[in-house]
């Protein structure tokens, strides 16, 4: 069987001592930043990206991927123990996980979240491996017109499923696309939007943008509100589930895994959306919905499985189509690019060891997380007692060193500060930075495919509508926008009418 031989190749790569070590570093770091509020996977991956220059590409990607799904495990630990989501994807875990902890069931809540995550991770790994080949084959048939439309669909999908204003999110994408074309134009050699700064002719680095918008801006907005944390310091005991708990939890974990796997693949999906959707589903189908919010184990098992499944299947569009669907995947594109790997369907054939090694490492990493997580909880709790006033300067330091080390110039540091300032303005204006980062990464690819598509059609723009695959994708994008806009229109009208009446 093909799948098995590919997985065998993958495990051969993932189980080498070096890669095991980097997977371990990745998941431990991921859990750490998952536990610590105020720093997320985007900022961490951006911080570590420059330090992976010297590594083998596969080791680098294994480590960075580990940070992302490791953060899902860590985030749930803080959600359960101190009612504070370490990651946005564990917001819903707070609701019932923390209530379980208050009832003295912290151990059980942590166990089900770890086991659910592991189960979901296993299923998602198999899913990624089995859809990778057919999807890549489909993508290899794409011409520039199809690629352009696919990117439109990916970008629109990413903002439709995200929260916040749709119009502003689309504007942020355009802004990102504009930032993405800063630098020397490959076709004409003209340095665009470089403002006479020689360093800008090479373009702006994805690390600089991500670190400023996500890292610096987040620290500053955290400092504007006072940080108060309340610890449920009760002794954690009883990691074993009762029969009753297990009976309620396993179907929820199963549903969460299925839901997360599907939502993870969609553009804009990923860990957070999956967790929210799963919680809503569990509450809807529960025998006794009133239990929810008071420590229902389904409310922990479902979302925790879903966020991990979603985190992993969100690699599918990146690995098979070369299209990132959330901010973390946008950074993975950056990571592949610095190692001279052009993300896309050809990675699987040109770089099979890297491709299957990365997939296999996800399962290995999940296994490590389940083994490590429960014994390490004591250590995480100690870390949480470090006050934010000590923590944030350290985060700032690591960010600054990371940015500096990209080119060993302080131009990058100044640029990051600039993006930090812009990031704060975005926060104030409720403009989400994630769509900008996606647009930024896709900008050059989009322009190139637009150019090539129109060159082939001799300047006829209808090419995007006459090629069937391209048309289907554009129609899907339009449908997505309509779905969101229509109720909005109605709501807006309702509000307007109300005010006039």
């Amino acid at each position, binding site marked *: 069987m093909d799948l098995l031989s590919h997985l065998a190749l993958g495990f051969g790569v993932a189980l080498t001592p070096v890669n095991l070590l980097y997977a371990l570093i990745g998941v431990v770091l991921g859990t750490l930043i998952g536990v610590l509020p105020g720093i997320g996977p985007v900022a961490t991956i951006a911080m570590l990206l420059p*330090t992976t220059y010297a590594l083998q590409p596969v080791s680098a990607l294994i480590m960075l991927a580990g940070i992302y799904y490791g953060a899902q495990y860590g985030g749930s630990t803080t959600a359960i123990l101190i009612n504070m989501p370490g990651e946005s994807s564990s917001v819903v875990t707070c609701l019932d996980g923390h209530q379980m902890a208050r009832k003295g069931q912290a151990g059980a809540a942590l166990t089900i979240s770890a086991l659910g995550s592991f189960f979901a991770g296993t299923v998602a790994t198999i899913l990624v491996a089995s859809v990778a080949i057919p999807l890549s084959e489909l993508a290899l048939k794409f011409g520039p017109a199809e690629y352009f439309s696919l990117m439109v669909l990916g970008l629109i999908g990413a903002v439709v499923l995200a929260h916040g*204003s749709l*119009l*502003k999110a*689309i*504007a942020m994408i*355009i*802004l990102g*696309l*504009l930032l993405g*074309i800063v630098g020397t*134009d490959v*076709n*004409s050699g*003209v340095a*665009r*939007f470089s403002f006479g700064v020689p360093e800008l002719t090479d373009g702006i680095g994805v690390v600089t943008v991500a670190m400023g918008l996500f890292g*610096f801006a987040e*620290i*500053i907005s955290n*400092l*504007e509100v*006072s940080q108060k944390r309340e610890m449920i310091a009760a002794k954690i005991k009883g990691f074993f589930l009762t029969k009753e708990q297990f009976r309620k939890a396993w179907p929820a974990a199963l549903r969460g895994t299925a839901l997360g796997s599907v939502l993870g693949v969609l553009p804009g999906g990923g860990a957070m959306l999956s967790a929210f959707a799963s919680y809503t589903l569990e509450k809807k189908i529960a025998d006794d919905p009133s239990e929810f919010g008071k420590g229902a184990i389904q409310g922990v098992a479902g979302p925790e499985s879903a966020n991990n499944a979603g985190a992993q299947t969100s690699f599918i569009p990146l690995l098979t189509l070369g299209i990132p669907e959330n901010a973390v995947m946008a950074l993975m594109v950056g990571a592949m690019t610095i190692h001279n790997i052009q993300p896309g369907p050809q990675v699987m054939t040109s770089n099979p060891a890297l491709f299957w090694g990365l997939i296999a490492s996800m399962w290995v990493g999940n296994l490590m997380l389940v083994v490590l997580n429960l014994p390490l909880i004591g250590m995480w709790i100690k870390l949480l007692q470090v*006050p*934010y*006033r*000590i923590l*944030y*300067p*350290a985060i*700032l*330091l690591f*960010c*600054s*060193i990371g940015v*500096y*080390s990209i080119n*060993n110039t*302080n131009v990058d*540091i*100044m640029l*990051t*500060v600039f993006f*930090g300032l812009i990031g704060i*303005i975005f926060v*104030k*204006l*409720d*403009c989400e930075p994630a769509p900008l980062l996606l647009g930024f990464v896709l900008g050059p690819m989009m*322009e190139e495919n637009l*150019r090539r598509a*129109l*060159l082939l*059609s*001799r*300047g006829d*723009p209808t090419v995007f509508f006459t090629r069937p695959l391209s048309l289907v994708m554009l129609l899907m994008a339009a449908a997505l926008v309509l779905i969101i806009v229509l109720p909005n229109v109605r709501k*807006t009208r309702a*509000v*307007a009418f109300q005010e006039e009446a």
Partner: protein
Amino acid sequence: MAVVRGPKDLVAGLMFIAVGILAIVIASNYTLGTAARMGPGYFPRILGILMIVLGAIIALRSLRLAGPPLPGWKWRPVLVVLGSVVVFGMVVNWLGLVVSTILLIVMSSAASTEFRPKEAAISGVLLAVLAVVVFVIGLKLQIGIWPGSR
């Protein structure tokens, strides 16, 4: 007589319009080309126009749609955090990692309302040691450790 109902959106819309205009003005220096043979100015101009249109819609909607007021702006965290990073960027080449780290930690700690100078100094020294061990010795980054060592 409040005409603007959603000040946040109004400012955001105006910001997008300004960026769009800026993009078009700058891109007007680049060859436009034709649709079949796009010059370097083609795509930026499309984006600039889209940006202005979206910005205008957002801004106009803010006149009708009620939204939250503009939030306050606390200068201390913004200036202290970003300023200390700027200082770090300027001195790291010259004073080396140890001194710049201590400077960054102590300065940026002052952004918090719970600033404790002594604690920040201790943390700075410890982190300087950690940074040298992790980044210079461990990851072998090309950063000087002491003043004038590069």
